[in-house]
């Protein structure tokens, strides 16, 4: 089934449309979570789905994240394709046991007899003055457990294609949505007027079914001097920084953290010899640590400078000092200066 039309969509609309397309194609796809049904979600990601598909396929749940993820595992074991929403990534922790010990291991421990093809969607990241309980980026927790895929889109186009791929994937997928860029591609310049998605080419979203395969990165910009490894909101921060500093950088949007597109990373870093990794999450044991180790292991003899990380600090996300915390343009520039230093002598 192909539909040739495209519609301009922001990220919320693209995510909403991905679920709609999947629910139309497969009656086993159901969505649920806190405020997800009648209201359509606090960010409106599931708006209209209950109206269209009925309350047995799009419904509200008790405020119990352990229950939301646990029943998703049971539904998936039955043969449904549950798409569960955790209202904020900061609220996912009560459901961790069901993800870490259950969803992630069921295929393995039952030797493939039972599986958990489910998606847990959750808005994550800061930049919205949400304080420490509405701003976290816990993605590295999920890449650290064996058996869950972790996906983070950066544009409406990617969000739809990746979410459809996640829903159709035979394994559990954690799908983190950078909420700061739901309505526009925020590039870290908080003092500038908000840019809407409508001015960005990736807001042209095909109406029908399409898939962006999990595990494939997107080389957003080709360059010779340095490789940026980024995902989510940081994609836009990096692109703006590169543009402002006039550097010939290669910018890679990872899209999927696990499984990782190592081929794309390796080819790029071997070409440029320099690497900057960016994420909003706290630094220590963040996903950047894994990326840095991989780059060092596989590209060591091509490296011209130590790999640099641009990250959040190892503190809870502060409310009033949000922009001092957020890894924005200046932190990016300083890292770039460090990585471009001539270290040969």
């Amino acid at each position, binding site marked *: 089934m192909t539909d040739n039309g495209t519609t301009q969509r922001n990220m919320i609309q693209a995510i909403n449309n991905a679920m709609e397309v999947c629910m139309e194609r497969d009656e086993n796809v159901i969505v649920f979570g806190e405020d997800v049904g009648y209201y359509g979600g606090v960010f409106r990601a599931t708006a209209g789905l209950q109206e269209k598909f009925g309350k047995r396929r799009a419904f*509200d749940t*008790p405020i119990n994240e352990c229950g939301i993820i646990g029943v998703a595992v049971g539904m998936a074991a039955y043969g449904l394709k549950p798409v569960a929403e955790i209202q904020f990534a900061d*609220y996912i922790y009560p459901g961790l046991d069901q993800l870490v010990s259950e969803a992630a291991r069921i295929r393995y421990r039952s030797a493939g007899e039972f599986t958990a093809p489910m998606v847990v969607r959750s808005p994550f990241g800061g930049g919205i003055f949400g304080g420490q309980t509405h701003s976290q980026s816990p993605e590295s927790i999920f890449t650290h457990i064996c058996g869950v895929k972790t996906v983070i889109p950066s544009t409406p186009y990617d969000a739809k294609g990746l979410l459809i791929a996640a829903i159709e994937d035979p394994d559990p997928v954690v799908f983190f949505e950078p909420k700061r860029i739901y309505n526009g591609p925020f590039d870290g310049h908080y003092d500038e007027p908000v840019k809407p998605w409508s001015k960005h080419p990736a807001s042209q979203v095909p109406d029908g079914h399409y898939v962006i395969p999990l595990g494939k990165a997107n080389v957003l910009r080709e360059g010779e001097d340095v490789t940026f490894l980024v995902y989510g909101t940081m994609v836009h921060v990096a692109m703006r920084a590169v543009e402002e500093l006039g550097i010939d950088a290669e910018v890679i949007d990872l899209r999927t953290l696990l499984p990782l597109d190592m081929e794309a990373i390796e080819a790029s870093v071997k070409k440029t010899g320099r690497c900057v990794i960016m994420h909003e999450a706290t630094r220590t044991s963040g996903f950047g640590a894994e990326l840095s180790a991989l780059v060092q292991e596989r590209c060591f003899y091509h490296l011209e400078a130590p790999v640099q990380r641009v990250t959040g600090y190892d503190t809870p996300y502060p*409310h*009033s000092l949000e922009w001092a915390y957020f890894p924005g343009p200046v932190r990016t520039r300083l890292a770039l200066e460090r990585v471009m230093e001539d270290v040969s002598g």
Partner: protein
Amino acid sequence: MAADDPGRNLPPLELYVPEPKYRPGDPVDFSDIDIPPAGATARPDTAASHDDMRDHAYGLVRVLDEDHKAVGPWDPKLDAGTLRKILRAMALTRAYDERMFRAQRQGKTSFYMKCTGEEAVAIAATFALDRDDMTFPSYRQQGILIARDWSLVDMMNQVYSNKKDRLKGRQLPIMYSTKQGSFFSISGNLATQVPQAVGWAMASAAKGDTRIAATWTGEGSSAEGDFHSACIFAAVYKAPVILNVVNNQWAISSFSGFAGGDQTTFAARAVGYGIAGLRIDGNDALAVYAATQWAAERARTNKGPTLIEHFTYRAEGHSTSDDPAQYRSADEASEWPLGDPIARLKNHLIQIGEWDEERHAAMDEECAGRVKTAQKQAEKNGILGHGLHQPLETMFEEVFEEMPWHLREQEQDMLDENEAANNVAKTRNDR
């Protein structure tokens, strides 16, 4: 096996999904809510076995009757002075909420949550506790602080995340904390405070202290595992704690049926755990006071915990972030059969000849003026702009008592970054 025949002729199963009675545009009729007359519920001895008071988990303790009289065995028989203090704390809380809600709408802060219609649940309960009893509130019990005469300016400083905010601008507005006020740091994660309250109460008991703990959570949040963890620990150790479930009917857009409210009462959860359960009219300040007083005495005499369901109504949106007109009938608040807690206590005071309309209007005016003055004072300390009211270094303080090397390093990185940013700005200005 009941049946081994796979081809047996059984009817198909159906998935039940609860549905609230009224949605936007629907006319509202609450006449089916069972409201027993005021004064009709017996008051058990505070040492009664939980087993002997099961009915209380399904009833509704009420003191104020239709004629605004205080009736029945639960009447706490408070003197007029105390009644006026409770009334004033509720009126001041409402005035504070109005002002701070508007401040958010004016862009002076990022977020706000009112407790309109639920003032009694926090305030009358606080009046029945001792000042040093420990409270573990959720996000809608600002009334505790106001009942304990906490400084409005101090509360507003927190809402504005300004330079006088004792929490150093770290927390979302309304997530107050004051050890001096026996008010535990509010979390944005739901129901986490409930087992903590039980733990505090267990500690107080273990140390032979005399203080008890009280905690509040919404009926929606009582679905969280933390709530149930709290109940089992409270029951097992007979913890001196009061577990308040504020059943205000709505959890953002989800009605109480999504927390199990269609099947039974929230107070009935106590029955399963072997805890004393009371279901009370949460808009009746005297019922709230009396139930809290009962539970406090029970706790103080080592008879164990009490779970109180406060049956009330969230008269406004969940927060500044939602529009209730999108998911519930606009008529619900005005049709709520248990009225408004401020109006009911006011009418009672008038009924006993201790209050009148003029004094009430004067009090409202005085409260509005006090809030306005406090706001002006708080705003001198700053409003939430692009932050930076706190020295940058405060970001790294109190992650640990002693700062480890990696945070020291990151702190220096942040200061270097700030200097670099200032240099850019300077160059731009010099041009």
